[in-house]
C-alpha cells in the first residue's frame, strides 16, 4: 500500500508541469463558472416533502391558502385614521402593485379594494351585501364615510384593517411556480419587488410592513451579502493564525491559496451540476476553507520538516505526499461521511448542504493531496521559513499535558467527564424541538423582518401562525348523489363543527376558523342577524343558506366541499406549542370524533413547522446512529480494535451530549439549521481522535513504548496540528455568531463549540480512557484466573517455562494424574515457540503414513545417525524416534493440538542416507484464537515477518505457495485476506487474525489444552534457583512481584526455559566469537540461560555449549532483534560471499549449518565470513523479499524506511558495491561470473545449490533450468550484511532418554528434568529437518512427564498401548 502511494507520488511529480497547468486551468475555468453560481432559495426546499403532512400540503397547495402568504400592511403616519383620500389611494395602488408581483395568485389577492372583500347588512327589507369600496370611489368625503361604515359592517376590522384603524393591508398568496411564466418562482425578485413598496410609500407618509416567507427569504439574502464580510474576517483571522504558526509569510500565503482552491472549485462545480447556493449551504464554503487550511497546514508542515532535514523541494514534496496521503484522505473521507450522513434528513435544503459539503471535501482531496505537493515541489527551502521549534520547553509542555494518560490522573479525568456527562444529559433533556421565541426563526429577533412581523401581529387580529387541517368528506351511503356538495351534508358540517369546538379549547390555540363557523354566521345573517339562528340546520336546504361561506374561490374549501380547511391559529410557533396542538388534533382524530369526515394534517405555516419539527425529531436519532455507526465502522476498519472505537467514540458522544445541553442554555432549539451541527461537528471532530489514536497505537506497537510515553509522543507529533486545526476552524465558524441570520449565528456558536471541545476530548478524555483500555499486559501482576485454579499447596510437578515443550510436559503430567504448576519468566506465555514456525520433525509419524509417506524407524535412525555423527547418542535418539509418533497420536487423540503432514517439506540434508523429500516435518493446523478467550491477550504475538502485512497469518504451505508463486497462489492470498476481512465478530474485538498458524497455533492449542486440565500458569515468575533436599530436587525459588518465593514440587521439576542466547556473558564464555546477543532472532532478554545456570548450580553436566541453532540474519538499527533469512537464500539471483568476495557454501545450506560454516571460514584460513554478504541484482531485488526488505515491486528503494536504507547497500556496478561493503572486488566479480554460468547450465559446480528437493522447495518455479540458480546480471546490485544470528542455543544440560538431567558423574539428578534448549540438543550440532528444536522438546517433555508419573516403563512398550485407551 505504502509503496503504491509512493509510486503514485513519484508519478505525480514526474508530470508535475502538466499537472500544475492542468490545475491552474481548472481553477480558471471553474472560477469563471463560479461567477454563474446563483442563489437558489425555495419554500419547498425548507420542508420535508415526504412527511405525510407535507403530502397533504402538496395535495391541496393549489386549492387552499397555504403557508406561502404575503401581507403588506400600510400604516398611516398622519393625523386621524385610514379613511382619507391619500391613504386609500395609496392602498389601491399597493393592491395593484401586489397584484403584479410574480407568483401571486391573483384571484386571492385581498384588500379593501378587491372584489372579494364585501360587507353585508341586515335590514328590515332583508339581507344586503356589496363590495366595501364603491366601484367609482374617488375620495370624496361622503364616500369616505360610506367606506368607513362598510368596513365596519364587513367585519374586516382586525383582518384587513388594523384594530386601531391606522393601518390596512394587502394580502396575497404565492405559488412556488409562477403561474404567469411557468418558471420556478424567483423569491429574491419577489422580495426585491416588495421592498420597493417600502421606499415608494415612505415618501407618502405611510410606513410599510411586510410579512411572509418570500420576504424572509429576501432578508436572508440580504444577510447572505453580509456573509462575504464574514468570509473576509475568517480569512484574515486564519491568515494571522497561520503566520503565527508557520512564521513564514510565503508558507502562509501558499496554504491560504491552496485552501481557497476547493472553495473556488466548489462554487464552479455547483452551476455545472445544476445546484445553486441556498441560505444554508452558503455556509459550506466557510467550512471547506477551514478544513482546507488545516489540511494544507499538515501538508506544508510535513514538507518543511523534510526540507529542514535536508531534502530538496521536490524530494520533500514526495515525502510529504507519501506520509500524508493516507491519513489525510482518510480524514477527508470521514468528513465527507459526516456530511453524507446529513443527507438522511428528509429536507431538501439540508440535503443540499450535505451534498455541497461532500463535494467540497472530495474536491479537497484533489487540491490538497495532489496539487499542493506539486506546488510544493517547485518551492525552494527559502519558502519553508524557519525550522519548526523543537525546544525542550515544548516537550515539557506536552509531557505535562499528557498527564491524563497516567493511571494516577486518568481516574480524575474520567470522574470529571462523568460529572460533565451527568450535567450534560440533564441539560440536554430541556432541549426543545423547533423554534424558541417568535418571528421568523431564520432572522434575529431585532431584524427588520421580525419587527415588521411583530407590528402586523400587534395591529391586526390575524396571526401568521396557522395550522390548517384538511377535512375530507367521506362518502356517505345515506346520500345517494355522491357528487352532492359535502357542505350541504349535516354530518360533515357537524363533525367539523365538533372538531372546531374541541380545538378552541386546546391550550395554545388562539382561534379556529372553518366553513361551518362561517356558514353559521351567514345563516344567522339571513335570519335577521340573530345569533340564536347561528346553527347548522340538519337539512341540505337549511345549509344552503350558508352557501356564501363555502364558495371555493374563498379558498376555504374545494369544489363541492370535497375538502375543507380548518384553520387553527396558534398562540405562537414554538416547537412545544405546535407539538401540543398537533397532538390534540391527533387525539381527536383517534377518538373517532370526526366521523364521517377524515381529518388530515396539515398545512399552513404551523403545519409546515410541525412536519419540519417532526422530521427533525425523527431524523435526529437516525442521524446520530448513522454518524456514530459510520465512524465506528471506519475506526474498526482502520484500527481493527474495539478499544480504539471506544477511545474515539466516547469523547465524541460526550461532546455531542454537551452540545445538546448548551443549546437550551443559549435559547437555541433543535431545527433544520441546528440538526446538522452534531453530525458536522462529529464528522470533523473525529479527525483529532483518529490522528492521535493512530500515533498512540503506532508508538506502542512498533516502538514498544508504554502508554503514557506513546501518548506523549503522539501529542508531540500531532498535538500542535490538532490544536491548530481546532482553533482555526473554531474561529472561522465563530465569526458567524455576528451574522444577521440567526440560524447562521446559531450554527456558528454550536460548531465552534463542537470543534473546540472535541479537541479537548481527544487530548484529555481519550488518553484517560485509553489508560484503562490499552492497559499494558506486562504492567499487570499475574493473578490466577478461574481457569488457572490456584495450585494446591505443593504440586507434584513444577514446569519452568511455557514454550511448546514446557506446556506439552505439563499437559502430559496432568494427564498422568499429577498436579502441575507452570511458571513463566515473561509477561506472555509461549516462549520461543510462539514466534517460530511451530513445526515438529517427527519421522515415521502416522499422519504421513496416512498420506502415503514411506518411512520407518530404521530409516529415520540411519538418517539421524548420518547427520549427527560425532555427537550421536543412540539411546536418546532411539527414545526420540520411538516416542515421536506416539506424541503425534497423543496430541491428536487427547489434546486440542493438530498437525498437518507436509508432503514436500524435505529434510535438510538431502545427500545423507535415508533423507526424505517430505512428510517428516509437521505443520501446526490453524487454530481459532477464540478458543483461548481472554488468554489470547497473554500469548506472545508472532513475528511480524511471518504474517502478511504484519497481520494476516498463513500456514507453511500457504507461505510456500505465495512466495514461490506456485499455481493458485493468488486465490490463496485472496482467501486469506477475505477470511480476515470478513471475520467481523472477531474484528470487533481484536486486530490480530484469529486464525492462528505456525508457532502461534501450536502454542495456542497447547495453552487451551493446558487450561482444559486446569493447570495454573503463572506469568512474570522467573526462576532464581533450584532447591535440593536430601539429594533430590524438591522445588524452585522464583521471584514473584520482585520478591523471592519458594515453590516445592513433590515429584520433580522440569526445566524447559530455553537457551542462553540473550546472555551476552555466556555467549562470550561459550560461543565462537564474535558473538552478540542482539544477533539473536528470539524475543529480547527472554532466554538468558537461567535454567542452565540453575542446573549447573546443582551439579548438572553441560554439553554442546559452543553451538547454536544458527541462522544468517540481518541486523536493522532500531529493531530489538535481528531479522532471520530462512528461505530467501534459495531464490535464484543471489550469492553469499565472504570478505574475499568468494562464495563459501550453498547459499541455501540449512541455516544452522550455514552459520557454522561462517564461523569455520576464518578458522580454516580463509577470509572472514562473519559478517558475510548476500549479494543480489536488480531483478532479485524487484521480485523477491530478502529478510526485512520487501520485494521492490512492493517497496521500491525510494520507499524504504530510513533504517532499511542503511542496511541495504546499493551500487550500479559490482565493483562499486564491493568497495562500499568492503569485500574484494575481483573475488566478488569471479563469484558472480561463476554463478551466472551455473545459472545458464542449471548446475552449481561448486556447492550444488538447487540440485535437491530441499533447495527447490522454496525456489522460484518460473526460473529455468534451475529454480534456485539465476544470474546476477542487471544493475544496480545490492548487498545485505549477514551476521551469524540464531533462533536459540544448542548447548545445555546433558539428559538421558527420560530427559533426566545427568550430574557430573553421569548419574541422573533425582527430581530434575530438562527439555528443549536448556538441555543439550539430541540432534548434536546439526539440524536434520524443519522442527528439530520443538519436536525433541515436546517428545522429551512427554517422556519426562511419563517418567515423573512412574509410567515410563509402560510407555516404552511397543504399539501405543497407553494411548489406545
Amino acid at each position, binding site marked *: 500500500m505504502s509503496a503504491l502511494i509512493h509510486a503514485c507520488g513519484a508519478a505525480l511529480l514526474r508530470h508535475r508541469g502538466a499537472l500544475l497547468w492542468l490545475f491552474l486551468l481548472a481553477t480558471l475555468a471553474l472560477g469563471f463558472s463560479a461567477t454563474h453560481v446563483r442563489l437558489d432559495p425555495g419554500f419547498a426546499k425548507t420542508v420535508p416533502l415526504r412527511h405525510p403532512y407535507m403530502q397533504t400540503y402538496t395535495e391541496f397547495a393549489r386549492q387552499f391558502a397555504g403557508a406561502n402568504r404575503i401581507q403588506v400592511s400600510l400604516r398611516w403616519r398622519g393625523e386621524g385614521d385610514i379613511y382619507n383620500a391619500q391613504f386609500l389611494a395609496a392602498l389601491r395602488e399597493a393592491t395593484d402593485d401586489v397584484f403584479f408581483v410574480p407568483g401571486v395568485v391573483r384571484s386571492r389577492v385581498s384588500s379593501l379594494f378587491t372584489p372579494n372583500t364585501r360587507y353585508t347588512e341586515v335590514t328590515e327589507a332583508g339581507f344586503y351585501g356589496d363590495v366595501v369600496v364603491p366601484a367609482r370611489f374617488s375620495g370624496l368625503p361622503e364616500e369616505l364615510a360610506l367606506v368607513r361604515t362598510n368596513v365596519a359592517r364587513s367585519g374586516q376590522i382586525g383582518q384587513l384593517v388594523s384594530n386601531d384603524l391606522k393601518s390596512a393591508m394587502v394580502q396575497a398568496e404565492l405559488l412556488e411556480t409562477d403561474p404567469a411564466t411557468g418558471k420556478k418562482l424567483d423569491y429574491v425578485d419577489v422580495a426585491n419587488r416588495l421592498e420597493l413598496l417600502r421606499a415608494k410609500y415612505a415618501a407618502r407618509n405611510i410606513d410599510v410592513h411586510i410579512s411572509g416567507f418570500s420576504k424572509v427569504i429576501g432578508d436572508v439574502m440580504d444577510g447572505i451579502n453580509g456573509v462575504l464580510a464574514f468570509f473576509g474576517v475568517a480569512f484574515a483571522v486564519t491568515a494571522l493564525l497561520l503566520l503565527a504558526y508557520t512564521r513564514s509569510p510565503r508558507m502562509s500565503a501558499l496554504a491560504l491559496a491552496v485552501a481557497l482552491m476547493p472553495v473556488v472549485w466548489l462554487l464552479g462545480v455547483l452551476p455545472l451540476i445544476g445546484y445553486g447556493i441556498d441560505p444554508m449551504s452558503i455556509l459550506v464554503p466557510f467550512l471547506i476553507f477551514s478544513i482546507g487550511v488545516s489540511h494544507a497546514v499538515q501538508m506544508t508542515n510535513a514538507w518543511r520538516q523534510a526540507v529542514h532535514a535536508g531534502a530538496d523541494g521536490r524530494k520533500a514534496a514526495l515525502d510529504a505526499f507519501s506520509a500524508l496521503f493516507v491519513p489525510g484522505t482518510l480524514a477527508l473521507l470521514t468528513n465527507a461521511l459526516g456530511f453524507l450522513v446529513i443527507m438522511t434528513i428528509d429536507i431538501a435544503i439540508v440535503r443540499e448542504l450535505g451534498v455541497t459539503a461532500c463535494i467540497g471535501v472530495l474536491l479537497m482531496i484533489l487540491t490538497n493531496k495532489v496539487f499542493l505537493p506539486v506546488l510544493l515541489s517547485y518551492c525552494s527551502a527559502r519558502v519553508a521559513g524557519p525550522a519548526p521549534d523543537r525546544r525542550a520547553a515544548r516537550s515539557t509542555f506536552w509531557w505535562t499535558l499528557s498527564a491524563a494518560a497516567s493511571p494516577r490522573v486518568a481516574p480524575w479525568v474520567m470522574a470529571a467527564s462523568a460529572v460533565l456527562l451527568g450535567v450534560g444529559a440533564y441539560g440536554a*433533556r430541556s432541549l426543545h424541538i423547533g423554534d424558541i421565541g417568535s418571528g421568523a426563526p431564520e432572522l434575529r429577533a431585532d431584524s427588520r423582518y421580525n419587527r415588521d412581523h411583530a407590528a402586523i401581529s400587534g395591529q391586526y387580529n390575524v396571526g401568521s401562525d396557522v395550522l390548517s387541517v384538511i377535512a375530507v368528506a367521506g362518502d356517505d351511503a345515506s346520500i345517494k348523489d355522491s357528487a352532492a356538495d359535502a357542505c350541504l351534508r349535516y354530518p360533515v358540517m357537524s363533525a367539523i363543527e365538533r372538531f372546531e369546538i374541541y380545538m378552541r379549547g386546546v391550550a395554545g390555540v388562539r382561534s379556529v376558523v372553518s366553513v361551518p363557523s362561517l356558514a*353559521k354566521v351567514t345563516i344567522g345573517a339571513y335570519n335577521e342577524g340573530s345569533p*340564536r339562528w*347561528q346553527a347548522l340546520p340538519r*337539512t341540505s336546504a337549511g345549509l344552503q343558506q350558508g352557501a356564501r361561506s363555502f364558495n371555493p374561490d374563498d379558498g376555504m374549501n374545494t369544489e363541492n366541499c370535497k375538502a375543507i380547511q380548518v384553520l387553527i391559529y396558534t398562540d405562537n410557533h414554538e416547537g412545544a406549542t405546535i407539538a401540543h396542538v398537533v*397532538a390534540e388534533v391527533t387525539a381527536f382524530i383517534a377518538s373517532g370524533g370526526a366521523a364521517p369526515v377524515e381529518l388530515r394534517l396539515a398545512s399552513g405555516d404551523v403545519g409546515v413547522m410541525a412536519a419540519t419539527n417532526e422530521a427533525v425529531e425523527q431524523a435526529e436519532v437516525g442521524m446520530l446512529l448513522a454518524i456514530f455507526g459510520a465512524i465506528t465502522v471506519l475506526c474498526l476498519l482502520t484500527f481493527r480494535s474495539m478499544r480504539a472505537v471506544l477511545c474515539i467514540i466516547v469523547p465524541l458522544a460526550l461532546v455531542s451530549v454537551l452540545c445538546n445541553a448548551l443549546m437550551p442554555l443559549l435559547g437555541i432549539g433543535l431545527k433544520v439549521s441546528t440538526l446538522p451541527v452534531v453530525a458536522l461537528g462529529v464528522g470533523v471532530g473525529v479527525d483529532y481522535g483518529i490522528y492521535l489514536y493512530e500515533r498512540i497505537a503506532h508508538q506502542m506497537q512498533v516502538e514498544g513504548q508504554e502508554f503514557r510515553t506513546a501518548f506523549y509522543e503522539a501529542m508531540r507529533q500531532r498535538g500542535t496540528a490538532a490544536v491548530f486545526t481546532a482553533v482555526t476552524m473554531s474561529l472561522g465558524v465563530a465569526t458567524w455568531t455576528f451574522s444577521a441570520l440567526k440560524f447562521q449565528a446559531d450554527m456558528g456558536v454550536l460548531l465552534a463549540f463542537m470543534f473546540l471541545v472535541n479537541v479537548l476530548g481527544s487530548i484529555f478524555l481519550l488518553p484517560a*480512557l485509553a489508560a484503562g483500555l490499552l492497559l499494558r499486559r506486562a504492567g499487570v501482576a499475574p493473578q490466577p484466573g478461574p*481457569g488457572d485454579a490456584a495450585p494446591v499447596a505443593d504440586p507434584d510437578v513444577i514446569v519452568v517455562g511455557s514454550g511448546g515443550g514446557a506446556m506439552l510436559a505439563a499437559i502430559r503430567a496432568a494427564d498422568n494424574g499429577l498436579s502441575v504448576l507452570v511458571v513463566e519468566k515473561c509477561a506472555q506465555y509461549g516462549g520461543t515457540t510462539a514466534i517460530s514456525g511451530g513445526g515438529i520433525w517427527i519421522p515415521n509419524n502416522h499422519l504421513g503414513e496416512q498420506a502415503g509417506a514411506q518411512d520407518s524407524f530404521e530409516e529415520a535412525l540411519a538418517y539421524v545417525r548420518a547427520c549427527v555423527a560425532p555427537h550421536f547418542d543412540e539411546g536418546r535418539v532411539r527414545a526420540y524416534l520411538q516416542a515421536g509418533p506416539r506424541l503425534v497420536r497423543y496430541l491428536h487423540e487427547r489434546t486440542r493440538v493438530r498437525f498437518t503432514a507436509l508432503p514436500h517439506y524435505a529434510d535438510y540434508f538431502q545427500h545423507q542416507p535415508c533423507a526424505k523429500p517430505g512428510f517428516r516435518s509437521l505443520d501446526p493446523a490453524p487454530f481459532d484464537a477464540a478458543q483461548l*478467550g481472554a488468554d489470547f491477550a497473554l500469548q506472545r504475538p508472532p513475528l511480524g515477518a511471518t504474517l502478511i502485512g504484519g497481520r494476516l497469518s498463513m500456514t507453511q504451505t500457504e507461505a510456500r505457495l505465495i512466495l514461490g508463486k506456485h499455481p493458485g497462489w493468488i486465490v490463496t492470498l485472496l482467501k486469506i485476506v477475505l477470511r480476515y476481512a470478513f471475520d467481523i465478530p472477531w474484528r470487533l474485538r481484536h486486530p490480530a487474525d484469529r486464525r492462528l498458524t505456525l508457532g502461534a497455533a501450536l502454542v495456542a492449542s497447547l495453552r487451551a489444552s493446558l487450561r482444559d486440565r486446569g493447570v495454573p500458569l503463572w506469568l512474570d515468575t522467573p526462576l532464581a534457583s533450584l532447591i535440593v533436599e536430601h539429594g533430590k530436587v524438591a522445588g524452585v525459588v522464583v521471584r514473584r512481584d520482585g520478591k523471592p518465593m519458594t515453590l516445592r514440587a513433590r515429584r520433580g521439576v522440569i526445566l524447559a526455559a530455553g537457551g542462553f542466547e540473550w546472555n551476552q556473558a555466556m555467549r562470550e564464555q561459550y560461543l565462537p566469537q564474535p558473538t552478540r546477543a542482539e544477533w539473536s532472532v528470539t524475543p529480547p532478554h527472554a532466554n538468558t540461560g537461567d535454567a542452565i545456570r540453575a542446573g549447573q548450580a546443582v551439579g548438572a553436566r553441560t554439553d554442546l555449549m559452543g553451538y547454536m541453532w544458527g541462522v544468517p540474519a540481518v541486523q536493522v538499527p532500531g529493531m530489538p532483534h535481528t531479522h532471520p533469512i530462512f528461505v530467501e537464500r534459495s531464490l535464484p539471483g543471489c550469492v553469499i560471499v565472504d570478505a574475499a568476495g568468494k562464495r563459501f557454501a550453498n547459499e541455501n545450506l540449512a541455516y544452522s549449518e550455514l552459520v557454522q560454516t561462517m564461523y569455520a571460514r576464518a578458522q580454516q584460513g580463509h577470509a572472514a565470513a562473519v559478517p558475510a554478504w548476500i549479494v543480489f541484482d536488480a531483478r532479485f531485488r524487484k521480485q523477491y523479499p530478502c529478510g526485512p526488505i520487501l520485494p521492490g515491486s512492493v517497496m521500491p528503494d525510494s520507499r524504504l524506511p530510513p533504517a532499511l536504507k542503511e542496511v541495504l547497500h546499493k551500487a550500479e556496478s559490482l565493483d562499486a558495491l564491493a568497495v562500499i561493503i568492503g569485500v574484494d572486488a575481483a573475488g566478488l566479480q569471479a563469484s558472480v561470473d561463476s554463478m551466472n554460468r551455473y545459472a545458464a547450465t542449471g548446475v552449481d559446480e561448486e556447492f550444488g545449490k538447487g540440485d535437491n528437493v530441499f533447495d527447490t522447495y522454496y525456489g522460484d518455479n518460473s526460473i529455468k533450468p534451475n529454480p534456485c540458480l539465476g544470474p546476477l546480471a542487471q544493475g544496480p546490485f545490492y548487498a545485505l550484511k549477514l551476521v551469524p544470528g540464531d533462533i536459540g542455543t544448542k548447548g545445555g544440560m546433558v539428559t538421558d532418554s527420560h530427559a533426566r538431567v545427568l550430574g557430573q558423574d553421569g548419574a541422573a539428578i533425582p527430581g530434575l528434568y530438562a527439555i528443549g534448549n536448556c538441555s543439550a540438543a539430541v540432534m548434536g550440532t546439526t539440524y536434520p529437518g524443519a522442527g528439530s528444536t520443538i519436536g525433541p522438546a515436546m517428545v522429551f517433555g512427554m517422556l519426562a512427564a511419563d517418567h515423573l508419573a512412574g509410567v515410563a516403563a509402560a510407555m516404552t512398550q511397543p504399539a501405543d498401548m497407553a494411548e489406545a485407551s
Partner: protein
Amino acid sequence: MLNSLLLHPLRCASLTLSVAVAAGAVYAFAFRPHPVFAATEVRADRLHINALALAGRRVVAVGEAGHILYSDDGGVRWRDARVTGQPGSTLTQVSFSDGKHGLAVGHDGVVLRTEDGGEHWQTAHFDPANTDPLLDVALRGDGSAMAAGSFGRFLVSKDGGARWQLAATPPAIADGHANALVRSGGNAMLLVGEAGMLHRSNDGGATWDALALPYKGSLFGGLALKDGAWLVFGMRGHVFRSADFGSTWTAVDTGLPTSYFGGAQLKNGRVVLVGQGGAVVLSGDGGKTFRIHRVGGRASLAAVAEAQAGHVLLAGEAGITREAL
C-alpha cells in the same frame, strides 16, 4: 470468562465510563418530555352562547352545538354539564323555575330538562324531522311550561317539560317566528317576534291578544321591569317602552343602529341591553333613556345576566365575558 485484565480498576473505570456515556447519550437524545399544557376543555370564552339563566346562585349558559356550561362562582370558572342523549343541536334559550328545575330549548325542536340545577340534563323533546328552532321557553313553579319558536310553533307542557303538546289556544301568530316570551313576576306575559309581532297574555299564557306597534321590524326580546313597565327591543336599535302593559308604546333612542338580542334588569334597577357588534347600552331610569356603555367589535352579544352585584356576564358569539358595570 473473566480475565485478570478485565478486573483491573482502571480498566473497569474506562469501561464503566464508556457504558455511562452510552447510557447518558441515549438518555439525553431519547428522553425529551414535552412541557405540560393545560388540559383541553370546552372554554366558556370560546363557545357561542345564546342564553344565560340563574339557578339559585348558579349561572347556566347554553349555546353552540348543544353545549351547556354552569358556574358556581359568578362566571369565573365553568364546568360542562352532562346531557343524556345529547343531540348536538344548538340551544337558544334556558329557563329555571327555581334553583333546581330548568328547561333549555333549541334547534330541531330540542327541549332539555334538568332537576339538579343544571348539572345533568335529559332530552325531553327532539324532532330531527322538523329542524326549525324553538327560540324561547318559560317554566313556572307549578310545573307548567311553554315554548315558542320559528314558524309559529307554540308548545305547552304540564309536567315540568317532560311531555309537550300544541297549545289549545295559541297566540295568533300563524307561521311567524316567535322570538321571545317575556314574563313578569305574575301572570302577565308578552310574546314578541318577527315583523313587529307582539302579543299579550294576562293569564300566564293560556290566552293571548295581539297588540299593535308602530314598528314593523323584528323584535328579539323584552323585559318586564320592577316598576311595572315593559320594554321590547329588536332590529336596528329599536327599543319601545310601555307603562301600561303594552297598550301604548314609546320609542326609546339608545343611540345605536344595532339590533338588540338580550337584556336584563340588575338588582339595583339599572337596565342593560346587549346586541349586535358587541353593543352594550345601560339605562339608569327604568329604560326611559339609555347611554352607550360599549360598542364595536365583531362578535354579537345574545344574553346578559348579573352574576354578582356589580358584575355582569355578557354572552354571545364569542363566548362569555365578565364585566363590571
